[in-house]
């Protein structure tokens, strides 16, 4: 059974038919990526999974049970956490408080403290500056904070929306190696990216999205050599 399965998901944003029947699935332990141009509906798909947007048609199944009708906090408690596009850390909260917000749904203080140290181990720069406001970090560091914050929720499935957006190439490399490391810990990852080459190199399987629909799906290495993908998304 797939960990997460989207079945014919439709979403209307006012009059705009933003998702036109999205089908997508991901199995535990995989990294899958959703690539496509700006406005294709990639972020909308993640927001539908996180229950920020409520699909009008279709179903989203997690461990085989529907997530529809659940509130966003129930989704996080179920083990799905999103690192949203543009990072959206809390700029006025300290780094530590940002991370504690990630553990908002958890109650066991000792386990939260242990995970906090785990995140500081993963991102030493955050540990050094834990009392500083989140807004004082650079873009790459904020991305680390956003990932660390999501990890604090102990997710089974991590939804990453454009983690490389606006970062210098060296930082992109760093972020992708961190994602690989997180996947190595057994966390399943759904990665939305415009940087198709990096995403497909990392992922097991890929989906290509265009104007609200999945137009192509295949194992990532096949997509990397697919002529259509090469032309449209890899700039070759």
């Amino acid at each position: 059974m797939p960990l997460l399965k989207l079945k014919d998901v439709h979403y209307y944003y006012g009059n705009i038919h933003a998702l036109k029947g999205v089908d997508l699935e991901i199995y535990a332990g995989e990294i899958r990526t959703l690539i496509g141009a700006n406005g294709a509906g990639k972020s909308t798909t993640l927001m539908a999974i996180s229950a920020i947007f409520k699909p009008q048609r279709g179903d989203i199944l997690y461990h085989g049970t529907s997530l529809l009708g659940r509130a966003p906090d129930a989704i996080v408690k179920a083990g799905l956490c999103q690192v949203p596009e543009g990072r959206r850390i809390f700029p006025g909260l300290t780094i530590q408080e940002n991370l504690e917000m990630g553990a908002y749904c958890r109650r066991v203080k000792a386990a939260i403290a242990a995970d906090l140290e785990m995140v500081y181990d993963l991102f030493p720069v955050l540990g050094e500056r834990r009392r500083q406001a989140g807004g004082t970090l650079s873009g790459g560091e904020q991305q680390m904070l956003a990932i660390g914050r999501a990890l604090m929720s102990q997710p089974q499935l991590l939804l990453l929306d454009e983690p490389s957006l606006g970062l210098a190439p060296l930082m992109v490399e760093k972020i992708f190696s961190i994602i690989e490391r997180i996947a190595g810990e057994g966390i399943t990852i759904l990665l939305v990216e415009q940087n198709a080459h990096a995403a497909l190199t990392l992922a097991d399987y890929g989906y290509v999205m265009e104007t609200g629909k999945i137009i192509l799906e295949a194992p990532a290495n096949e997509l990397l050599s697919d002529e259509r993908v090469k032309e449209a998304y890899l700039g070759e």
Partner: protein
Amino acid sequence: MLTAILEHSSLFLQQLVNGITLGSIYALIAVGYTMVYGVIQLINFAHGEIYMLGAFISFSLLTGLFGVGLPFWLAVLVAVLVCALAGVLLDIVAYRPLRRAPRLAALITAIGMSIFLQNLALLIWGAQIKSFPRNLIPAFFNEPALQFGDVVVSWLQVIILLTAIFLMLALQLIVHYTRLGRAMRAIAQDKTAASLMGVNVDRVVSYTFALGSGLGGVAGILVALYYNAVYPTMGYFAGIKAFAAAVLGGIGSIPGAILGGGILGLAEVFGGGYISSSYSDGIAYAVMILVILVKPNGLFGRQLRDKA
């Protein structure tokens, strides 16, 4: 010459005491405006009416108007809890359905709820000004606690100031050092991101209304005791003034609301004492306008996103 200076300084000190008392009451009300604004960007114009309800409910419970007469402190406690609950209900009934509507819709609803609650009070309690029967409130309230020459500080003034200080400190502790407070600040900064972290935004907003309304209720009771007057429109003027205090301090900022309340209280009393008592309200607003002209976001205000 010397007596003139002494007389002058004792007038000054007495005004200072009165101004601080009034200011701490404005501060208590103003934090309610600023907290709600912080989390949902709504000016809750019915907040003054919650304050009025605090006065009326404590009065009713004390005098046994609803069939039960409670001892003073218990009446106060129950009235504050009722106010907290009333604030939560106000949000759920009137504002929550409009959370995704344009802000103007919620604002107009807030004004509507203010008028509705005023008229509800008029219907239940009538227009006549009520005063607390002297035998039902602790006798020491109006006795002097401190006296320097002609300057008298009553126990009630001491209680008002200490209550305000205690509650403001408690509020700061809640906002800065608890899970709830962290969630409130997170929502104020990015509601969607807070949702994505598993915060039940509606629930946190309810707690915010409960806290703000409880403080407003306390202020209403204190004012009713201080001026010994309870009437349906009492929340209107106090509400507008406390709103001005919140704006003056920078809406959304709790320390700003406290400072704004203090400044407005002092401006009103000193303006009334040294310039003209008939202009005391006008002087208080003039101070607010001056501050806003120089610092449009208020004293502690953040740069506000302009979305109408």
